[in-house]
């Protein structure tokens, strides 16, 4: 057995080394630079915690946090509702089941940037033209041009693109539910709604947990969507934290300062993910 263990160890070490050098080491470097005033080049000094203190006084960072959470929470809820509905539909005995599954998976294959540019075209030219034609004045302007509503445009595009991935996970979950339970429920006279709430949903609870956690984590790190659709505008209305860190760090040469922002954000995401797992796992059924 000893030699077998050694083989397994040898198999894991390369991955561990690569992970350390390309992931953990840069992370530690980022933490290190967050205590300096480094611009990304040239000389620097240690500045202690002043970067961290400044982040808390930075209105732009606060507004980025506000937007990111608003966007992530709304998108996570919508994605999970749509993904579950579509998965239930695709799991039922319907015609063209396989083709439909492929079609619903398509958005996930497309690059977010490309989807973003297409949606930008739709919002800028296509929708206003239709609205003009139908005489609906409220929709005749580009919603991406309004600081109050631009985030809705980003949500629509993000949800459209992200649902596909969660559908796959829910489908996998639905297939683990055995037919017997449904048959038993049918004999007891349970109606479809009751069957969903009392059987299906509890049985796929672990998949619900993982979908919520993954979706929220992905949406909290939203970047490509913003770059393709609004560039963070109008004003700072749709600037997410990742975009702010990238902008400030590279365009503004605030490498040290934005590293501090990134470290704070890292802690926030880890904390939220742990909290979510704890809460959601509690209500999973023990199988």
């Amino acid at each position: 057995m000893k030699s077998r263990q050694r083989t397994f160890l040898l198999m894991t070490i390369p991955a561990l080394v690569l992970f350390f050098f390309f992931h953990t080491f840069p992370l530690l470097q980022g933490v290190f630079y967050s205590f300096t005033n480094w611009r990304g080049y040239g000389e620097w000094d240690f500045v202690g915690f002043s970067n961290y203190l400044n982040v808390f006084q930075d209105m732009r960072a606060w507004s980025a946090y506000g937007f990111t959470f608003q966007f992530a929470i709304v998108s996570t809820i919508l994605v999970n509702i749509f993904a579950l509905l579509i998965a239930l539909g695709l799991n039922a005995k319907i015609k063209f089941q396989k083709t439909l599954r492929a079609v619903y998976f398509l958005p996930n294959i497309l690059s977010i940037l490309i989807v973003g540019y297409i949606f930008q075209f739709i919002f800028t030219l296509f929708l206003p033209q239709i609205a003009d034609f139908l005489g609906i004045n409220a929709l005749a302007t580009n919603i991406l041009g309004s600081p109050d509503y631009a985030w809705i445009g980003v949500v629509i595009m993000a949800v459209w693109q992200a649902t596909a991935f969660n559908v796959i996970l829910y489908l996998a979950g639905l297939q683990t539910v055995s037919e017997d339970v449904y048959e038993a429920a049918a004999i007891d006279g349970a109606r479809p709604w009751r069957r969903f709430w009392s059987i299906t949903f509890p049985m796929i609870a672990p998949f619900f947990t993982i979908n919520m956690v993954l979706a929220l984590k992905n949406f909290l790190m939203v970047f490509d969507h913003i770059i393709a659709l609004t560039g963070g505008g109008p004003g700072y209305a749709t600037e997410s934290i990742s975009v702010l860190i990238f902008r400030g760090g590279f365009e503004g040469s605030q490498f040290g300062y934005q590293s501090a922002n990134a470290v704070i954000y890292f802690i926030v995401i880890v904390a939220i993910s742990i909290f979510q797992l704890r809460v959601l796992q509690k209500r999973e059924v023990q199988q």
Partner: protein
Amino acid sequence: MKWIASLSIVSTLLFVAGCSNHQADDGKVELELFSNKAENIGTYQKLIERFEAEHDDISINLYAPPDAETLLRTRLVKDDMPDMLAIGGSAIYAELSQAGILVDYSGDPMLNGIQDAYLSMISELEGPEQTGIHGVPFAANANTVIYNKQKLDELNLEVPKTWDDFIYALETAQSAGEIPIYFTFQDAWTTMPVWNSISGVLQPEQFATKKTEGALTFAQTHQEATGKLLTLLDYGHDRMYGIGYDDGNRAFAQGEGLFYFQGNWAVPEILTTNPDMDLGVFAMPTTNELEENKLVSGVDVLFSTLKDSEHPDEAAAFIEFMLEEEQSEQYMAEQAAFSVLDGVLSDDPYMSGIRDDFAEGSITSFPDHFYPPGMGVENMVQEFMYRKNADDFLNRLDREWDQIQLRF
């Protein structure tokens, strides 16, 4: 099969770009020229070909990626800089020259004959802590009001010379059912031409330096500018917040709007859509005093060499070549740009409206070239255009500016 062909071209290009830093096998000196403009790639390529024909031991690789300034900063972080830069005289130049990585050209004969206005703009960008001129200005741009000549004639109007004339023209256009100004506010940066035109003329001398020192604030000095911007917003159109640069150029070319706030760089773009369009440009008359109204103009392209480049002589030869009359004239004509050389005036008919400003040196610099990079002033201006709350906007500019100083 077309896409396969284009795919292979793209991958070849990527391969070539990836190899650009290596010495060629045939003993040629290879220089990498990094440019931050996408509009002039074609012109550069023609000029580079001519240069390479004259100097068969030098080959120049032009590299002009999208979002070039961000890329240049990431390369700076990685310490992987090109040999030569062709960048604008703006915040990126200020940063690179302050980093002490560019060759100092002060006293170099190449600077002879360049208009003083541009040389002093460049040296102001160097900041208070150092002196020197770390780039050779080549082409200038101008922030203008582009107008539809045909519509102006139909409305029996003259090119406005004062603020009151301008408002009168807007009123006339509005009552005739025309869109007076075709604003484009979807992109943050397209809100800047109008902001630069107005605040460039109205802000105090050396504003950026004084603001950093804490001697002045936006709230004290920019009230008139925000007031005038708010006035102009009444003459926009219904969809101005949802239209960006490309859509705006297209719409203006198709005859929407009497005036259009953009720089001279937009003129070739507009003419691509509608080659027969009769358009002209003028400097925004921000005040009622003729002498105070100036053309906002800046250094659009300057050439500089990195101190670390292994081939400084070859780089200098290329810059000298570009400054020669033939190349310079071809560049200015193809790009509708302006030469920074004293007495060399554009004979482009579209640009005749601002010829006198250049001849008289009635020029002031782009205010936003002096704002701290990464502050995102354009986003704040864009938000102001939408919210129309001047006090909030000016206070926010002041606060962000002060906060950025704390980060270094």
